[in-house]
């Protein structure tokens, strides 16, 4: 296996841009990533892109405007973990030696998608989906269990959103750069009890891109490479295999695989980016990633360890809650954020001395499964 590094990262503007096509948003992210890498677009040997809604030849549609043609281009989908899937797919091709350098892109136009302003449902024919299950409903019910089993309070869930927006206010790329109080979060419109509007990620249009390369290729371009030392992607397991809704075994499995490959444990991680589409789920991911012992996620949050200036900041970008969540872009965007953090160029939200970052994404729901897909990447300098 070849060592693989993140050579360049790029993110488009995040916000509501129904007039912008995916070529425009994806192109902005890809151009930035290619320039950041210091390569010529013609150097790219492979492209993996992801989009959930109305996807068709996403890579080609974006890259033809950048002069990139006649290479292997693959387009993948894995719900919110689609971007992570694109990153991992490219990672594997470089690690295996098929190509030396390539680009992974995630892009989404949520405001023009069929789910704009709606609760995101599972597949049209999914049994639970027909019966009224949607993503916020699933996480609201999980939150109800956290209140029973973990002593979580509505104020704790609101605090996750307050924390995310404190970070987001420091990120010039965030869709919402506004701080909120716990009272404001709890006072916003109820979506699915206990999840209020300000505990839900917004509808976001945008794109992110990363240029990955073999360590050999990268040597010419950087003296301080950000290495991908762990990469995993795991599909959901049967719901009957878990005792309760407060853990997602696929997330535990994805974390374990990435930690093992990287040869580290959760105690070695300095900064985390994870799937906080709904504030409540962040507590579950703390435990599934091993950031704290099982049952102690509420205590970890309350201690401030995951907040700005804490021991292990979670979602310094502002997370999906504040930075925004163009579904397939997020899995790529978290790699961008961690790369900036490890390079020490994250500005006001910089985690001092960060050397190891963990990027987690979760995607999709289907009757009988704990979720659709979970992916974890570990980046190291």
């Amino acid at each position, binding site marked *: 296996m070849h060592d693989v590094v993140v050579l360049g990262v790029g993110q488009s503007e995040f916000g509501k841009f129904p007039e912008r096509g995916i070529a425009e948003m994806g192109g902005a992210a890809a151009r930035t990533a290619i320039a950041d890498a210091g390569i010529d677009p013609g150097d790219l040997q492979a492209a993996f892109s992801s989009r959930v809604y109305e996807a068709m030849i996403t890579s080609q549609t974006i890259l033809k405007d950048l002069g990139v043609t006649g290479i292997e281009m693959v387009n993948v989908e894995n719900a919110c973990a689609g971007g992570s899937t694109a990153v991992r797919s490219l990672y594997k091709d470089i690690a295996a030696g098929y190509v030396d350098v390539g680009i992974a892109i995630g892009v989404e136009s949520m405001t023009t998608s069929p789910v704009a302003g709606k609760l995101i449902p599972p597949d049209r024919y999914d049994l639970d989906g027909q019966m009224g299950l949607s993503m916020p409903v699933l996480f609201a019910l999980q939150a109800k269990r956290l209140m029973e089993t973990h002593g979580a309070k509505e104020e704790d869930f609101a605090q996750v959103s307050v924390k995310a927006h404190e970070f987001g206010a420091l990120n010039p790329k965030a869709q919402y750069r506004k701080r909120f109080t716990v009272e404001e979060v709890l006072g916003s419109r109820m*979506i699915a009890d206990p999840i209020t509007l300000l505990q839900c990620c917004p509808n976001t249009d945008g794109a992110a891109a990363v240029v990955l390369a073999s360590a050999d290729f990268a040597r010419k371009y950087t003296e301080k490479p950000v290495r991908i030392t762990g990469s995993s992607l795991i599909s959901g397991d049967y719901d009957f295999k878990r005792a309760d809704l407060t853990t997602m075994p696929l997330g535990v499995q994805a974390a374990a695989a990435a930690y093992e490959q990287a040869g580290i444990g959760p105690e070695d991680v300095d900064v985390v980016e994870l799937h906080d589409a709904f504030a409540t789920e962040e507590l579950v991911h703390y435990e599934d990633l091993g950031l704290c012992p099982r049952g102690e996620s509420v205590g970890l949050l309350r201690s401030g360890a995951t907040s700005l200036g804490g021991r292990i900041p979670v979602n310094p970008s502002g997370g999906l809650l504040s930075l925004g969540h163009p579904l397939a872009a997020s899995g790529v965007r978290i790699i961008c954020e961690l790369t900036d953090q490890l390079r020490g160029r994250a500005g006001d939200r910089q985690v001092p001395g960060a050397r190891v970052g963990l990027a987690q994404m979760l995607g999709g729901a289907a009757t009988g499964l704990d979720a659709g897909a979970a992916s974890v990447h570990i980046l190291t300098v």
Partner: protein
Amino acid sequence: MTTSTTSTPFREGLFREGPDGPALLAGRCTRCGRVSFPAPDMCLDCRGRELETVELGGEAELLCATTVHMPNRHFPPGHAVGFVVLPGGVRIFTQLRPVEDKPFRSGMPMELEIAPLWREDDADVLAYRFVPA
């Protein structure tokens, strides 16, 4: 507009209505005993090929409930949903019908009812939901 009184089950094989009340129908693996709802084509636990239909009855225990304040698929704002645990430990997602004086709480006994939950192609669609017992 004419309103038809035709009603059709949401899906075949999910439930049956009998003189002794409604029951959900599940598949039980004849090899490992795993009970699954909805009944799968093969055992999801041991991959056994032989499943027999078993009735899960009409009683359950509430695990958790939420009220959804947005329209969602067939359901208007203000509908309640949750997870209930059926005999044998089968956990399912379901619509819930609130009853005055019996607020939802974890562990409370629930009862199955088959009711028209939405309309499709000019017909009532019959599906399952649970009500505080």
